């Protein structure tokens, strides 16, 4: 397989391969070290971090939907200081890039956490302005271009690391949001976060999730994700990490073709802990079969038949 060049450069963040894992679906990596060699992953985006510990939302936090799942974790995490002290050293043992997914109730909190993490060995910060599972902050920062521009610009001032902005699909026009992030100073864009959804237990006449709404992920949302990556690719000039329902190498290739420079696997990890390795091999084989020499060859190559 060595003759395919799998490395990608996400505008300063160099990955040995384009297969990364999505925040919230890979914990801090520990659980997966039992199944796969973490050295072989392009990058790991860790569970969303906040300044202080968060307990998260009440249980039940998950509901299965047709080819999708709703989660309502609510950013449960031990806080950024705990992460730096106890989780980051574990992760730094591996030859992979560490992306810290950051969250806050206010812009100031985002800036503070960016500042703190800029002094650590994480390789990139991922500004999560798209979490639907918290009362304050979260997706409310990600739905208006003006707000996205402002928060990106402010955080940029405190972030000396590579900066990714993670976009919410719960918007009117993803292009204007992506443009705002680019103008605000993002080095890279990741998308999509979850769609907001709800599921009902018709016997109990309650929502299945204790909190009512949750974030929809998995194959069900793939068509929306692919469309949004396509739109953003044709709007901004910074690279894109594409995600949303990737379950096999074919799904991954769809994302490269519409313009993602790297892909991220979320829900797929929860179903098959070996999935990253299977997809990595699958992509390489596909490129080989089609006589490409680098994964970069197919990024954005899609054609629209009637265009």
């Amino acid at each position, binding site marked *: 397989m060595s003759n395919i060049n799998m490395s990608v450069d996400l505008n300063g963040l160099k990955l040995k391969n384009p297969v990364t894992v999505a925040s*919230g*679906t*890979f*914990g801090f990596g*520990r*659980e*997966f070290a*039992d*199944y*796969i060699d973490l050295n072989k992953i392009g990058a790991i985006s860790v*569970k969303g971090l906040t300044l202080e510990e968060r*307990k*998260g939302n*009440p*249980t*039940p*936090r*998950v*509901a*299965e939907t047709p*080819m*999708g*799942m709703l*989660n*309502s*974790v609510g950013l*449960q995490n031990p806080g950024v200081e705990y992460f730096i002290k106890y989780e980051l050293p574990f992760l730094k043992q591996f030859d992979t890039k560490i992306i810290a997914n950051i969250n806050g109730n206010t812009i100031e909190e985002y800036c503070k956490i960016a500042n703190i993490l800029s002094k650590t060995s994480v390789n990139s910060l991922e500004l999560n302005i798209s979490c639907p599972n918290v009362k304050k902050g979260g997706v409310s920062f990600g739905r208006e271009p003006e707000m996205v521009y402002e928060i990106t610009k402010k955080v940029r001032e405190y972030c000396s690391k590579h900066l990714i902005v993670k976009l919410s699909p719960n918007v009117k026009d993803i292009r204007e949001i992506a443009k705002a992030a680019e103008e605000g100073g993002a080095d890279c864009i990741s998308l999509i976060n979850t769609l907001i959804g709800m599921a009902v237990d018709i016997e109990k006449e309650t929502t*299945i999730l*204790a909190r009512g709404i949750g974030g929809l992920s*998995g*194959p069900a949302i793939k068509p929306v994700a692919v469309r949004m990556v396509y739109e953003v690719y044709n709007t901004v000039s910074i690279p894109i990490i594409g995600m949303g329902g990737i*379950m096999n190498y074919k799904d991954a290739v769809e994302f490269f073709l519409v313009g993602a420079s790297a892909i991220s696997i979320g*829900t797929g*990890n*929860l*179903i*098959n*802990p*070996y999935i990253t390795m299977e997809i990595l091999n699958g992509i390489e084989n596909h490129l080989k079969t089609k006589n490409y020499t680098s994964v970069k060859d197919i990024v954005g190559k899609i054609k629209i038949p009637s265009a």
Partner: protein
Amino acid sequence: MKRDLLCKVIEKVKINENIYKLTIEKPNYNKNIKAGQFFNFKCGEGDYPLLRRPISVALVKKDSIDFYINKVGKGTNALCEKKEGDYIDILGPLGNGFDLDIKGKNIVIIGGGIGVAPLLELTKQLSDMHVNIDVMLGFKKEAFIVDEFKKYTGSVSITLENGSEVNKGYVTDLLKERIKSKKYDYIFTCGPKPMLKEVKRIGEEENIKTQLLMEERMACGIGACLVCTCKVKRGKDDWNYVRTCKEGPVFYGDEVIFDE
């Protein structure tokens, strides 16, 4: 490194209208399986249904494991459609399992409904430890796997919610009755939430240590996604959400907070 594996269905037995026993080939890695652990099953063909379903280990044999599956929805129905010779993708063993490093000689094991399944392997393992085991099993209408329990202890009692006068009632009522005359050192239990709550209460009241096998909706089953949380005490006045699939599914009665 662990490997999840496609494991062969060796035998499938219909237990009653809703419950099937699947005997599945052991995954071929060398791993000790504890009572109270579970496997996370891929139920359908291909990707659908999307999530795995957790099923408790009911009995570990030399080359195979017994699971009892209660058909309640898409996933469990699909599992019960599997045929002998089919392969199933089972990930595990997962979870902590029961803590068998216990003090005391008099053990009571209380199960309700499909929750009796994981107690079978527990009974087997405890029976090797030469303790006294009273097993009490509660069912709605119809008892099952009772004979399997009898292989490991002479004391197996049954209650049926819709039973005849002899054994009609809740299994927790039976426990309350017995406790009057017998001093237990330890309670192990698995079953529906209201039952677990009641067992915890009784344990606290009587000062008997309890271990509860808790069910919670799961996704990964390996501790990565934090969706399966159980509310437990932390320190004196604080609490915390811990992962049922990793820190559990077995919890001590005195740590669980049942307020949701």
